[in-house]
C-alpha cells in the first residue's frame, strides 16, 4: 500500500490547518454561509437532513488496518457509533458537529487520510477496481496510476471550480468491477498489439438525471502521458462545459452536445500543447509509487484445498470468495447487507473487527467496493474457515454477494436533504421478502440498486433491477427499471411504467423475478433473460 512521505504528510497537515482556520472564521462570523459552504464541501462536510455529514476519502477504496481502525474510532468519538460506506468507496458519518470537524481531520491526517475534494465542483476521489493487485484476471494493477492521479488532482489550482463535480474511475482488468463507463472519466489499462501498456480513456459517462455511457476518447494513451491527457480533458471541460444550468453541467452533456469526435479533436489539440510544457511526473515517480504496491510476501507452495464440510461456510465460500492470482490465496468480500439491514452501514465495533481481521489474515489491507461491501484482498485459503467464523459471530457473514439482497441503496430521505423518497426501508423490505438464501441463489446474480432521487447515487440506472424514489404530491412513490448493467456490458435500465408505493414496489420486484424464473433458459441470468425477451412479459406480469 502507498505510504505518505514528508511531502504528502505536509499537504494533509496544511489542509487541517486551513480548514480549522476556515471553520473558526465561520464561527466568528467573518464568513457568511454562502462563502463557507463551498469551502466546507471541499472537505466533504455537508449540511444534511439531520446534521452535518462528513465524507472521508478512501483513495481508490484501499486502506490499511490502522486507517480502518481510525474510521471506527471516529464513529465512536465524534459520531453515533457507526459509519456508512458509499458507492464511491468512501465512508460517511451522519452526525458531525461543525466545531469537531478540525479535530476529525487531524485524527484522519494522523493515519494518512483526509476528506479532501470529497464534494464540490472539483475532481473527486478516484475510484478503482476493488480487486486490484489480487484479481486473477488482472492485466495491470491500477492502484499506482490511481495514486499518481490522486496526487495530481489534489488541490489542482485550475480545476477547483469546474462547471460541476468530476469523478474518475480506473481499472486494470477486462472485467469491470468499478462501473468505469459511468464516470466522467473511466480509464481502462489495456495492452496494444505490440504488448505495450496504455490507458484507454472513456469520457463523458454518468448517471444522474441524464444517464450516459462514456464513449472512447483516447484509445491508447501512453501511461507516462496520462497526467497530460487528463489535464487536456479537464481543461476543455473547464472552458466549455455548460455553466448556465447545473443539470446540464456535467462533462457528459458537453461530450454529447458537441459530439465525441469534436471533443476528442479539442482534447488532442490541447494535449499536443500540454505535452510541450513538461507537466508529466517522470518515469521514476511512477516506479516509486509502484514500489508501494508490490505483492505482499505471499507464501508459495500452499495447498489450495478447503474443507467444505460446514454447509453454511460452503455457501459463503461459493458466493463471497473470488479467485486470487496467487495460488493458495483467495479474495474475500464481506457483505454489509444483512437481511433487514441498512446497506453499507457498519458499527464502530464491526469496523474495528474488520481492521483486526485484515491485520491477521489479509496482509493488513482492506478495500471498499462501490457496491458498499468490504474486501479482504489477500486471504490464505487455509485461513478462510477461521475468518468466516469470526465474521459470522459479528453478523458479517451474509453469503449474498451479487444476489438480490446485495442491494446498493443511497441514504435516501432518511438522511439526505436532496432525496425525494426513502431508499433504505425499500431495501430492507426487499431483503426481508427474499430472506431465504436458497431462493436468492435460485435467482442467481441479480443486481438491485435503489436511488431516492434522480441524482442516482444508488445507481438505479445500472441495476438489473433499478428502483427510483420520487415525490408524487408529497407521497413517496417508486419507479421500477429493468435491464441496466454497469459491467463490461454496461447498459441503462428502462422504466417499466407507473410507479408504486413502498409495499407495491416490493411486490413488483417479486413479480419480475417470477417472470425470469418462468422464462429463463439454461445458464441465463436475470439480465440475460430480460435482454432476450424484452420488457413486454415483465410489464404484463407487473401491471396485467
Amino acid at each position: 500500500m502507498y505510504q505518505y512521505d514528508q511531502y504528502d504528510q505536509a499537504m494533509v497537515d496544511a489542509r487541517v490547518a486551513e480548514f480549522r482556520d476556515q471553520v473558526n472564521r465561520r464561527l466568528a462570523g467573518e464568513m457568511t454561509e454562502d462563502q463557507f459552504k463551498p469551502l466546507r464541501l471541499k472537505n466533504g462536510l455537508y449540511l444534511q437532513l439531520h446534521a452535518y455529514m462528513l465524507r472521508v476519502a478512501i483513495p481508490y477504496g484501499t486502506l490499511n488496518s490502522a486507517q480502518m481502525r481510525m474510521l471506527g474510532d471516529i464513529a465512536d468519538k465524534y459520531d453515533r457509533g457507526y459509519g456508512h460506506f458509499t458507492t464511491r468507496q468512501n465512508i460517511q458519518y451522519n452526525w458531525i458537529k461543525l466545531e469537531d470537524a478540525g479535530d476529525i481531520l487531524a485524527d484522519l491526517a494522523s493515519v494518512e487520510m483526509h476528506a479532501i475534494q470529497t464534494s464540490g465542483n472539483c475532481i473527486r476521489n478516484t475510484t478503482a477496481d476493488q480487486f486490484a493487485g489480487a484479481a486473477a484476471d488482472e492485466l495491470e494493477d491500477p492502484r499506482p496510476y490511481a495514486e499518481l492521479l490522486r496526487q495530481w488532482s489534489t488541490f489542482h489550482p485550475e480545476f477547483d471550480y469546474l462547471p460541476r463535480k468530476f469523478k474518475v474511475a480506473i481499472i486494470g482488468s477486462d472485467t469491470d468491477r468499478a462501473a468505469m463507463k459511468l464516470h466522467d472519466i473511466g480509464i481502462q489499462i489495456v495492452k496494444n498489439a505490440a504488448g505495450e501498456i496504455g490507458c484507454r480513456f472513456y469520457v463523458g459517462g454518468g448517471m444522474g438525471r441524464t444517464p450516459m455511457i462514456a464513449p472512447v476518447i483516447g484509445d491508447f494513451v501512453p501511461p507516462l502521458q496520462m497526467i497530460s491527457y487528463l489535464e487536456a480533458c479537464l481543461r476543455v471541460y473547464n472552458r466549455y462545459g455548460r455553466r448556465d444550468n447545473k443539470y446540464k453541467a456535467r462533462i457528459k452533456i458537453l461530450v454529447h452536445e458537441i459530439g465525441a469526435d469534436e471533443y476528442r479533436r479539442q482534447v488532442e489539440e490541447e494535449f499536443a500543447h500540454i505535452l510541450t510544457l513538461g507537466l508529466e511526473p517522470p518515469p521514476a515517480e511512477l516506479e516509486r509509487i509502484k514500489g508501494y504496491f508490490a505483492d505482499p510476501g505471499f507464501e508459495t507452495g500452499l495447498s489450495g484445498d478447503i474443507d467444505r464440510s460446514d454447509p453454511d461456510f460452503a455457501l459463503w465460500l461459493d458466493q463471497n470468495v473470488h479467485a486470487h492470482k496467487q495460488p493458495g490465496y483467495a479474495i474475500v468480500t464481506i457483505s454489509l447487507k444483512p437481511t433487514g439491514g441498512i446497506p453499507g452501514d457498519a458499527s464502530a465495533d464491526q469496523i474495528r473487527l474488520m481492521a483486526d481481521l485484515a491485520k491477521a489474515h489479509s496482509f493488513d489491507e482492506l478495500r471498499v467496493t462501490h457496491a458498499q461491501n468490504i474486501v479482504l484482498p489477500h486471504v490464505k485459503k487455509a485461513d478462510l474457515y477461521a475468518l468466516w467464523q469470526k465474521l459470522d459471530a459479528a453478523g458479517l457473514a451474509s453469503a449474498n454477494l451479487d444476489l438480490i439482497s446485495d442491494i446498493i441503496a443511497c441514504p435516501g430521505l432518511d438522511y439526505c436533504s436532496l432525496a425525494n423518497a426513502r431508499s433504505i426501508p425499500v431495501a430492507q423490505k426487499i431483503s426481508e421478502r427474499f430472506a431465504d438464501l436458497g431462493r436468492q441463489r435460485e435467482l442467481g446474480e441479480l443486481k438491485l440498486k435503489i436511488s431516492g432521487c434522480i441524482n442516482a447515487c444508488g445507481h438505479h440506472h445500472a441495476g438489473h433491477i433499478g428502483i427510483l424514489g420520487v415525490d408524487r404530491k408529497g407521497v413517496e412513490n417508486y419507479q421500477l427499471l429493468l435491464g441496466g448493467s454497469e459491467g463490461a456490458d454496461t447498459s441503462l435500465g428502462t422504466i417499466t411504467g407507473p410507479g408504486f408505493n413502498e409495499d407495491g414496489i416490493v411486490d413488483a420486484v417479486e413479480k419480475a423475478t417470477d417472470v425470469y424464473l418462468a422464462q429463463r433458459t439454461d445458464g441465463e441470468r436475470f439480465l440475460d433473460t430480460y435482454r432476450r425477451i424484452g420488457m413486454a412479459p415483465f410489464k404484463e406480469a407487473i401491471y396485467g
Partner: protein
Amino acid sequence: MKVLTGNDLKTGDVIWWTGEGWSRHVNDAVDAGEHPEAILAREEAAQRVVGSYAIDASVTGEGVRPAHIKERIRALGPTVRLDLSLKPADPAAGNWVI
C-alpha cells in the same frame, strides 16, 4: 401556518423557531406569520442557525405536523434508526412521518 426550521450552526442539530429562540422539538414551533424572512435573516446573521427556511405546517392532536414528509423526517430523525431519533422508545414512531 408557517413554521421555521434550520440547523444549529455549531452542532448541526435540527431546530425549530419558538418565537424567542430555537428548540430541537417540533412541538415547540410557533406560527412565524406571513413574513418570516426577516426572522431568518436576523437569526442567520447572528450565527444561531444555518440552512434555515420556512415550511407549511398544521397543528393536530399530536402537536405540530409539518406539511411535507421531508420535514416530518427532520422532526423525528431517521426512520431506519429510531434508536437515534427523538422518540427512541416508540417502535411505531416512524408511522408519523407517512
